[in-house]
């Protein structure tokens, strides 16, 4: 507990510049997050430990300061996370003093609700949907805040900021509510829920520049490091864990790599990189000729891969 003098000292140092940040995207995202807290009874922030959800957490802190974030975080754990991400998650939650809910894809598998994929491209990415929908029902969440961005993928580009899902978690892409000016319509029936995307209008570079400017801590795998890897289909896969299937003829070698996205390990490839600081990462993204999801095998399954997953309730 702070003493009065400490408090006075603290408030002295609080005085900032004449005007707050001119980042229009940041003000827009904070507005959206506040609308969620005001319009819904049981919101939750979906937290994967990736840079987009870490950015969301910072924005939520800003939206409600000096109060705590008024909703819990939830991690749908595929069990195939990079260990660095989990360590990071637990540390962050402790600092924030917010509740963390974890639901495991492994449990859905054990309960027989989903069947583990097999073969060379086996991934738990698709299986997350079932675990997520079950958790929404379990906690009766009416709004799930997520870090998806419209620039990631062309089906995402069609997504609303408040995106209504029916009882089955499904996205009716041809019948979406129009969104006009700043007005967000969060009216729903019981059983429906809304997926909310506050950083819809951010690009990958916007997120990285924000992390740089705000000096936000992120998991170490985003920075260049030495890793045992193998090559398949021109992509670089981690060979350090059992999670990614590796055929016997796929040779392991050591390279300097980093990850641009941190999804399920089984579908997230690394990129060759020497960017070991945030400044170098921002510079690398600025000059990159490959899109962020170019290293995500889940999108390469077909041209409509993302749209199909979303219709089924995928985040």
């Amino acid at each position, binding site marked *: 507990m702070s003493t009065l003098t400490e408090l006075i000292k603290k408030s002295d140092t609080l005085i900032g510049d004449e005007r707050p940040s001119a980042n229009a995207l940041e003000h827009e995202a904070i507005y959206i997050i506040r609308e969620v807290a005001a319009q819904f009874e049981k919101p939750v922030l979906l937290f994967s430990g990736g840079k987009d959800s870490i950015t969301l957490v910072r924005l939520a802190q800003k939206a409600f300061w000096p109060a*705590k974030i008024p909703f819990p975080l939830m991690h749908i754990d595929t069990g195939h996370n990079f260990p660095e991400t989990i360590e990071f998650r637990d540390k962050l939650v402790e600092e924030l003093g917010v509740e963390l809910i974890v639901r495991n894809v492994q449990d859905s598998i054990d309960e027989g609700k989903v069947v583990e994929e097999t073969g060379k491209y086996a991934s738990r990415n698709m299986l997350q949907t079932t675990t997520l929908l079950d958790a929404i029902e379990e906690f009766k969440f009416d709004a799930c805040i997520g870090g998806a961005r419209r620039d990631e993928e062309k089906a995402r580009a069609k997504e609303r900021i408040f995106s209504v899902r029916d009882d089955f978690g499904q996205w009716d892409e041809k019948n979406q509510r129009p969104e006009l000016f700043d007005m967000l319509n969060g009216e729903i029936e019981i059983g429906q829920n809304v997926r909310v995307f506050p950083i819809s209008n951010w690009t990958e570079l916007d997120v990285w520049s924000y992390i740089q400017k705000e000096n936000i801590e992120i998991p170490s795998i985003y920075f260049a490091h030495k890793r045992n890897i193998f090559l398949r289909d021109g992509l670089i896969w981690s060979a350090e864990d059992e999670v990614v299937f590796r055929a016997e003829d796929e040779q392991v070698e050591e390279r300097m790599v980093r990850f641009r996205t941190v999804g399920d390990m089984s579908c997230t490839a690394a990129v060759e990189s020497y960017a070991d600081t945030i400044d170098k990462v921002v510079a690398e993204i600025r000059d990159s000729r490959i899109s962020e999801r170019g290293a995500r095998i889940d999108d390469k399954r077909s041209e409509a891969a993302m749209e199909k997953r979303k219709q089924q309730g995928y985040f």
Partner: protein
Amino acid sequence: MEVLKLATAGSVDDGKSTLIGRLLYDTKSMTDDKLEAIERTSKQKGYDYLDFSLATDGLVAEREQGITIDVAHIYFSTPSKSYIIADTPGHVEYTRNMVTGASTSQASIILIDARKGVIEQTHRHFFINNLLRIKDVIVAINKMDLVDFSEETYNKIKADFEELMKKREYQDQTITFIPVSALKGDNVVNRSEHMSWYKGQTLLEHLEELDQKDIYNTGTPRFPVQYVIRPKTDDFHDFRGFSGKVYGGELSVGDEVIVLPSMTRSTIKDIYFYDKKYQTAPRRSSVTITLEDEVNVSRGDMLVKVGDLPTVDKQLTATISWMDGASFIPGGKYVLQHGVNKVLAKVDAIEHKINPDYSGIEENVSALQMNDIAKVRFRLNKPIFYDKFKNHRTNGSFILIDSRTNNTAGVGFIE
């Protein structure tokens, strides 16, 4: 970095997607993997040019039918600006998407096929851009390569469009004509080698120079309270902050304000953004404000400056754009969402329907269908605090929600 939101409007086959693709391609915003995917699919379909619409038509149904159904958002940037394009479909039946896309945009591009000239659809596109009071409109006369880059054709279309401009209500709209070939890349990013008669800017040059900063700064700040922050912690025991976004002007510490609807007077004590205090909250900043006095304020209330009151009324007249499958009828009841404030609204009367192609009005209309635009009188169960749309974009607009389906069924512009 400055963000410019742009809407595009064009009829089927005017080459809207191609134009966007060209902007992305020539600004090197399209990454290699996306470009390869377009090359692959274009080849598969047997086209002898790159079909950039494949990059923007994100839904299966769109690619199957070769048309754009829903608003898509596309992002690209130059060293000086970030651009967000709301790509809106041009079909007659999709007026609602055009209104939607234009509502969040600061500038817009209307495409015209140089072979067809100004057609009925062009009237609609212009009407909607003018209704939404988009400050900067660019008329891109496309497919110039198919009319031998003819100056005469360009001048004819320009003259026809200028004829149309005489009918507009919002006269201050800036309109710029640019002859382009999106397919060949003339005057989009790079200057055309085929149209030496055109001395103006390329499309991108023009966009780069648009200064949007103060366009919507009307000097009339409105602060609708979104959320009340009460931390109830030891450090901030008595903290009561009102958070929201500032519209139409700016607010500063020391400003005398009135809280609506209670009409209580107070003074702005502090302006917070995250954990720091600031002197001024600029237009469109999401801040938290504390007041000098203990005032009862809750969500939906509004802070305004003393001597600068909006209209506080339970009745209003508005031009509405109807967007729902169920028809809109006199006597019908809707939830009216004005900013973050929700009230119940009853339709008093439909005064007249406005044909969005400038062909006049229709009186004695018994109902409105999807894509209709009309002047309507409403009665509300509680007063709202509004400005006229022509004076205040955000505080002069509302949406109508059908409480049976919860759908956003229409949008209104207050008169």
